[in-house]
């Protein structure tokens, strides 16, 4: 299939997943901060922004980390390329350019999500965000479900799976890396510790799955293991990266750089020693894992997309020429 089409499908899925992830993380903190006795809300909001890697950009636009500022930043702000509205817009633009490749149901799902986010009453959302968050997540799930149920599971579908699972793996690793050290730093009997661990699980939609397996006892290391090393929980890093490796094998067989990078990552997670379980130790291990996920993304780009993206300054010139033609 065409490299450009593969790349657009990959990024459509990636951005839909990112929109869902950002929304979920925001939702969890909104609610965690309502009932937990967190001394410094500002610090908690700060952590969410830097978890998504946008600390410096945020500071260019805001002085303080407040619920309202952070929600505005993560949902709508023009300066934030990972704001939910820009994720959804980028996903839809990518989907639009490959509309003949995806099913009508998928197009309707992504278009519906775009309309939902675009038409939202922003002030009302800031006052009572929960219903909106739920709608965004439902919209993303609808797209992913439609991909599974209405699109032929051929090569184009595999690129959607790749984008979705690579993004999901990266988000889970980021969340654990950010929240785990905080939880282990609190004393065993500090009630805040349980709140923090529950928030960590909910940030990965993993609360119910974890409780079923371990009961309602929240051990930091058990939680980290479940979120990273599970081969069954769909947001665990290992599960997601294995899914990526399988998709790549179906696309291109078992030879090639992406296969090697993904295979090694999976093996490292599965067979690596737990080692240093301190906050700093786990954060360092997960930092390496995140770098590995980035390498996998680069390998995919090089092997399948070899994109020749235009520089930003040329994009509007190209659009003008497209209009003059024909």
């Amino acid at each position, binding site marked *: *299939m*065409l*490299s*450009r089409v*593969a790349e657009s499908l990959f990024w459509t899925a990636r951005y839909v997943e990112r929109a869902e992830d950002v929304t979920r993380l925001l939702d969890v903190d909104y609610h965690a901060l309502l009932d937990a006795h967190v001394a410094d809300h500002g610090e908690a909001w700060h952590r969410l922004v830097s978890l998504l890697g946008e600390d410096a950009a945020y500071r260019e636009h805001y002085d303080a980390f407040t619920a309202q500022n952070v929600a505005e930043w993560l949902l709508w702000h023009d300066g934030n390329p990972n704001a939910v509205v820009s994720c959804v817009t980028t996903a839809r633009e990518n989907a*639009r*350019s490959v*509309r*003949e490749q995806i099913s009508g149901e998928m197009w309707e799902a992504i278009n519906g999500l775009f309309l939902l986010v675009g038409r939202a009453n922003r002030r009302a959302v800031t006052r009572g965000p929960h219903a909106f968050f739920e709608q965004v997540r439902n919209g993303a799930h609808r797209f992913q479900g439609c991909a599974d149920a209405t699109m032929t599971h051929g*090569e184009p579908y595999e*690129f959607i799976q790749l984008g979705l699972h690579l993004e999901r793996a990266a988000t889970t690793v980021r969340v654990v890396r950010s929240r785990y050290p905080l939880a282990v730093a609190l004393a065993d009997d500090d009630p805040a510790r349980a709140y923090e661990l529950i928030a960590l699980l909910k940030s990965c939609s993993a609360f119910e799955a974890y409780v079923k397996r371990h009961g309602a006892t929240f051990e930091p290391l058990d939680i980290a293991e479940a979120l990273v090393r599970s081969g069954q929980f769909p947001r665990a890093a290992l599960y997601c990266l294995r899914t990526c490796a399988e998709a790549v094998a179906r*696309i*291109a067989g078992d030879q090639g750089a992406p296969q090697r990078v993904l295979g090694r990552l999976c093996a490292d997670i599965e067979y690596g020693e737990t080692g240093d379980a301190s906050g700093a130790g786990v954060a360092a291990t997960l930092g390496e894992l995140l770098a590995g996920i980035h390498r996998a993304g680069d390998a995919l780009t090089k092997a*399948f997309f*070899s994109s*020749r993206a*235009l520089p930003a300054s*040329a994009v509007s*010139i*190209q*659009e003008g*020429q*497209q*209009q003059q*033609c*024909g």
Partner: protein
Amino acid sequence: MTEHATDQGAGLIAGYDAGAFFDEMIDASGAARPHYRALYDRLAALTDDGLQERIRTANAFFQTQGIGFTVYGDQAGTDRIFPFDLIPRIVPADEWAHIEGGLAQRIRALNLFLGDVYGTQRILAEGVVPAELVFGSRNLRRELMGVEPPGGVYAHVAGIDLIRDDEGRYLVLEDNLRTPSGVSYMLESRQALKRIFASLFDRSGVRGIDQYPRELLETLRSVAPTGAGGDPTIVLLTPGAHNSAYYEHSFLARQMGIELVESRDLVVHRNRVFTRTTSGLQRVDVVYRRIDDDYLDPLAFRPDSLLGVPGILNAYRAGTVTLANAVGTGVADDKALYPYVPAMIRFYLEQEPILPNVPTYVGAIPDDLEVILERIDELVVKAVDQSGGYGMLIGPAATPEERDEFRKRVSAEPRNYVAQPTIALSRHPTFVRGGLYGCHVDLRPFVLSGAEGVRIVPGGLTRTALREGSLVVNSSQGGGSKDTWVLDA
């Protein structure tokens, strides 16, 4: 008066005023023409509610299909739904046979003319077509002299615009031989009409048009380079998602089952064209390109083009890839050469033209120029290298200032302009502003030319001028479309 109309049980159609024009449905005595009888009766029986429901069905169809086109100058390239009229235009079998014969004859002559211009130039040597008009054409591509495309076909896909005058005669208004669009509207309008007037289809004997994508694919296959083998790879090259006809490009690619590619998907290596795919480079044999010559190859034409494929022209000259339409077809649909098409038909085919031209004054000819400048208030003046209703003046409807402005433009660059008498285009009942009004129409059939001959799908795009009194039917100028029924008997 109103009561009389109600007595006939036909609120809509009975109130219809055919006016002083040639009306497609109603004859001079006020009766429906025989081939419109069934539709007329149906309209007479239609209640207002029934009509409204059908309009809703049609709108819902176009909305869910996402059929729109982009109008330049509108805010942010907004997609508008193509304005569609649910009352079909009907062409009886004998009229269609006449049209079909005329189109096939015309496109054969035009393809021979292109082969001649880029070959031995016999027609210029014999003085049938003035050489200065050909060499003065902005769309002549000197780079292609001596390059003969497979099968000698240049204009694989042509849209020939026909109009009818006040006596109902079909005339050719213009030839579109570069990248004519609109065929997707023809096909989708039919889908919509089948939902709206299903039972009428059963009884009327309407000829099908759904074979168009298959026939286009067969046409493209027939002109693959000789080295391509039995199963050539064909792609559709689009300028991109911001182009006004992008919907059509995507639609046709889907219907033909071929890849829709943008310039960045193609790469030329050692004079061969390839697509970049997830499993490496794949050879391409035929490119159905919907990109203008100017933008096609930055190494050969506009160097600033970001839509083109560097090196594709050399690959074409080397004969490893077929471009459809061929490069340089614009010289044959130059409006200054249009008046010579009947002469081309006589010269190459030794036949009399079946479909006449509209009388045309050519700015480049001194006597004609004088007429244009003197009678600009009666004429339609057109720039020779523009299409889509851009760059034209309708003399009788223009203000004195606009006429003066055009007089200046024509005097400054006479080669760039032609003029035609204002034709009283035929009208067709059309549903606008809550009632039936006569709107001016034209007809664009699509003519396919392959190595094995000419194919014409029985139908075309009927465009209507929806603004009251307007004579401009282009979709970019606020025109609408009708389904066009060609009857089998």
